[in-house]
């Protein structure tokens, strides 16, 4: 039982959080969350023949000519100058004129990422990657590991091995559930182990901002704040029905997260959960200022998204589009379909409709655009619309296109529309050089 002060009622109220109890959920679990610090920048430094680079501010940036010229990652020295991920290179250079800019090398990052995961697998087969640079490790049940203190010993060893074998550092969180383990790895950076156990709940976890919890983004945090809920402890004290009423089903999940009651297991390495959505986006070399340009880009995006859908034997029953205008304002729109499809023609038709309803391109041109197939269902379950009368012709065409691409490469067949103006395109989608190969 804990005592907290309620500002509204000016009373001291008591609440029971089972997480602090000795018999609570997750008792006996040991979960680690490893986060490779400033990953892209660390890899560039670790791989650089110039060893003096470690004492200089370094940032990894996108391709300026392709208008991807933003800071993707920065090292600790650059952070001291206030360089931020996602900001324009010119702004970063203003803050730190001596900033060393390096291009991104995704193959290299993947090699380091794979090597780090191999190191984790020496300690457990339950290694669940979370992006390229993060992973959860479940140590529960491993020989001689039964407390978070044992977990700390393993975490320290992992950090040492990462430094010796790869030359990069990691922050590792240790707890008895995935959410607090992740909270721990964010708590102290770089190169640190943080244990967040039950006895630290009241002193450390409870007063932390709710925005520190995984999946609480800016808008959720703002919504919680509008109800006077600012800390993890505040969320844990709420009625779960109230949280559901303001945040939907995510409110219930957040309630369990903040009380340390998340019981989701760490997946076995290699276990890939079924995708919930598939999408592609692009920032073309020029702003999108007309509907015909937008349709051209959408056509190529729909083509790659649908190829991926068909490769995974799935169809979608909804489309979500995201836009970023020239003022760097981002927004999303979505539409539900009354049938399931993996046809690029269907996606293009609906996405064009959604685009026309959502954006006035002449007034505010777009800088980037993306399309995401949502509400996925297995393709083998027939879902026929009452209004669809093509007799399966689209499926036959798509299947033929897929076979051709399998044999002769992705760019061997494309819609005529995308041949109109190749210069407006020129992005690389999921490993396929879609348009640069159109000769």
């Amino acid at each position, binding site marked *: 039982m804990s005592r907290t002060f309620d500002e509204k009622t000016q009373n001291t109220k008591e609440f029971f959080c089972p997480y602090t109890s000795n018999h609570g959920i997750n008792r006996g679990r040991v979960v680690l969350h490893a986060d490779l610090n400033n990953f892209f920048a660390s890899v560039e430094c*670790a791989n650089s*023949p110039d*060893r003096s680079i470690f004492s200089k501010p370094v940032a990894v940036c996108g391709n300026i000519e392709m208008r991807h010229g933003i800071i993707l990652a920065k090292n600790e020295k650059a952070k001291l100058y206030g360089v931020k991920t996602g900001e324009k290179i010119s702004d970063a250079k203003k803050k730190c004129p001596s900033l060393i800019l390096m291009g991104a090398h995704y193959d290299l990052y993947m*090699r380091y990422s794979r090597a780090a995961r191999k190191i984790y697998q020496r300690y457990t087969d339950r290694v669940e990657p979370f992006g390229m640079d993060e992973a959860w490790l479940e140590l529960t049940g491993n020989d001689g590991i039964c407390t978070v203190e044992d977990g700390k010993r393993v975490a320290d060893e992992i950090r040492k091995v990462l*430094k*010796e*074998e790869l*030359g990069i550092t990691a922050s590792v969180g240790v707890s008895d559930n995935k959410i607090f383990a992740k909270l721990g790895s964010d708590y102290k950076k770089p190169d640190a182990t943080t244990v967040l156990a039950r006895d630290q709940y009241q002193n450390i976890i409870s007063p932390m901002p709710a925005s520190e919890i995984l999946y609480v983004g800016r808008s959720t945090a703002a919504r919680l704040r509008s109800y006077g809920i600012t800390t993890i402890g505040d969320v844990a004290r709420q009625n779960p029905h109230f949280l559901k009423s303001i945040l939907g089903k995510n409110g219930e999940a957040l309630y369990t997260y903040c009380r340390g009651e998340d019981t989701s297991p760490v997946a076995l390495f290699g276990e890939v959960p079924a995708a919930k959505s598939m999408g592609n986006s692009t920032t073309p070399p020029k702003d999108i200022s007309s509907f015909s340009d937008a349709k051209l880009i959408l056509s190529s995006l729909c083509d790659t998204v649908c190829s991926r859908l068909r490769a995974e034997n799935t169809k979608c029953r909804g489309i979500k589009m995201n836009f970023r205008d020239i003022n760097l304002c981002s927004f999303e729109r979505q539409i539900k379909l009354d049938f399931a499809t993996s046809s690029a023609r269907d996606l293009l038709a609906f996405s064009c409709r959604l685009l026309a309803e959502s954006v006035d391109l002449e007034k505010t041109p777009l800088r980037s655009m993306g399309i995401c197939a949502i509400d996925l269902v297995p393709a083998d379950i027939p879902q026929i619309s009452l209004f669809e009368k093509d007799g399966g012709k689209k499926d036959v065409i798509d299947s033929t296109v897929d076979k051709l691409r399998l044999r002769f490469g992705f760019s061997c067949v494309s819609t005529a529309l995308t041949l109109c103006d190749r210069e407006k395109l020129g992005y690389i989608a999921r490993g396929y050089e879609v348009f640069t190969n159109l000769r």
Partner: protein
Amino acid sequence: MRTKTYVKVTAIFDDIGNIFPKKIEWEDGTNYEVDKIIDIRPCASTKCGGFGIRYTCGIRGKEAFLFFEDNRWFVERKD
């Protein structure tokens, strides 16, 4: 100061997949026999950058590191 220098290596692959370097060919064509392998471990190159399997080799009475990185061999050459 050291420079990462990729070199040609003659190696033996044993029946369980272990790789043992036997001879290093330097840039100028000189061959150096690996007299003995003192240590093998995954390791980052602290002097030149990169990571791989580091072989500590005994060559002509001296110890030298030879790295096997992403299917290429390199040494940390003194400038």
